[in-house]
């Protein structure tokens, strides 16, 4: 007796979600699944779903699956997909919008500390006006304990140390650049009434 392959049932078609995302990303509905985006994607090998699958899932309204995928976080924003897409779909913009939605909806980030990194990065800009890579690394480390994981410590800490020796990393600085102008921008963008 031939056995049918186990098939996953598609649930949770969230049309509100689908509509919202499609409104923010130019040309999303033009996708005909040629998979040019996934073929050229340098990180597709590490993703759970390929970029063309993510597009399809968004159109189907598979909100939970999309917002918990590793794909949206592993995207390096290299723009190869969007450059080659025959339908001029803004795929990187799509990934940005999905990352934002995933954060806002409070989904657990499936790829370690990528979301925390982006948050620390932007927080550094708010506090100091510029990114000082020493301070960035330090606050990222304090938030995540990433380098203290056994696997990474030798290689990554060693690289950081060598960079420090070569003057490519400096001790964290407290200097602020245009603090009023920068906090003004953050206030307007995040707390405009």
């Amino acid at each position, binding site marked *: 007796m031939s056995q049918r392959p186990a098939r996953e049932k598609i649930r949770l078609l969230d049309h509100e979600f689908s509509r919202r995302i499609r409104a923010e990303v130019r040309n999303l509905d033009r996708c005909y699944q040629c998979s040019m985006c996934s073929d050229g994607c340098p990180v597709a090998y590490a993703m759970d779903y390929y970029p063309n699958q993510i597009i399809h899932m968004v159109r189907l309204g598979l909100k939970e699956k999309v917002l918990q995928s590793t794909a949206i976080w592993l995207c*390096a924003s290299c723009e190869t997909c*969007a450059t080659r897409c025959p339908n001029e779909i803004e795929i990187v913009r799509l990934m940005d919008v999905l*990352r934002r939605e995933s954060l806002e909806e409070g989904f657990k980030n499936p790829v370690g500390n990528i979301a925390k990194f982006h948050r620390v*990065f932007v927080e550094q*800009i708010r506090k100091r006006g510029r990114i*000082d890579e020493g301070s960035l690394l330090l606050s990222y480390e304090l938030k995540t304990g990433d380098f203290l994981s056994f696997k990474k410590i030798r290689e990554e800490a060693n690289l950081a140390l*060598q960079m420090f020796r070569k003057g490519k990393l400096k001790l964290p600085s407290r200097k602020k650049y245009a603090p009023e102008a920068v906090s003004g*921008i953050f206030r*307007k963008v995040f707390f405009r009434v």
Partner: protein
Amino acid sequence: MRFAYYPGCTATSTSIEYDESVRETAKYLGIELEEIPEWTCCGASSGHVINQELALALPSRNLALANRMSLGIAAPCPACSLRLKTAEYELKRDPGLKTRIEEDIGMNLELSQKSKHILEVLYQDVGIDAIKQKVQKALEGLRVVTYYGCYLVRPPEITGFDDPENPTIMDKIMEALDAEVIDWSYKVDCCGGGLSIVAPEIVKKLVGRIVSAASEVGADAIVTACGICQANLDMRQPKNSGFRLMPVFYFSELSALAFGSPNVGEWLAKHFVDATGLLERLKLL
């Protein structure tokens, strides 16, 4: 020839030698780079993940500061350059958005001068012939591949930089210095960029592919125009014993060298893969 210079954050640490060699190259070529006073971060790789409006407002502040200087911007970092160009592009096509961003930054924006990456300044404003005339020490015998990475060329409708799949601006500049430029297929492949801190395994894999390809076509070195690309390619090459490590130059280090700069050794001392041995063998250093 004057530009408002936007060094970008990596210029102050990771790619300090890029910044210094760009400034020196500019001096030899008669380009005046006037640093934008109190410039602030463009938001680069993380701003657009957190908030789209922030990702436009941060570079726009710097555009407005350049307006005050009545100069167009020149930036050495492709990521900064793309953020600046993206703000120009998006605000030009949406006047309502422009007004909103002007409110965010508390300054008016005038978008008539398109900002440029420093390679565009060399190619378009200085020109290949003028570059050739400045060469004191021809880079004869140096076989390089040029690596453009992502943000110089993509997205093409925003960067307006050369052919997005096979750019040649940096090739022509290297040839003007008498280096031999070898054709290869990895000019615009991604090195993993901003993933290097959070997902170094991915970056190592991508870098491994790129540097191996450079080696296979017989290059002595890779030439880049990006602080993040250079750091990734230079620091994360395969460690297995069979692999011949590949020096990774900034184009500006090689141009300054060809124009007679005495400071090249100091910059190369900051690289991870030794780059001085190769130049010494070729009697260029």
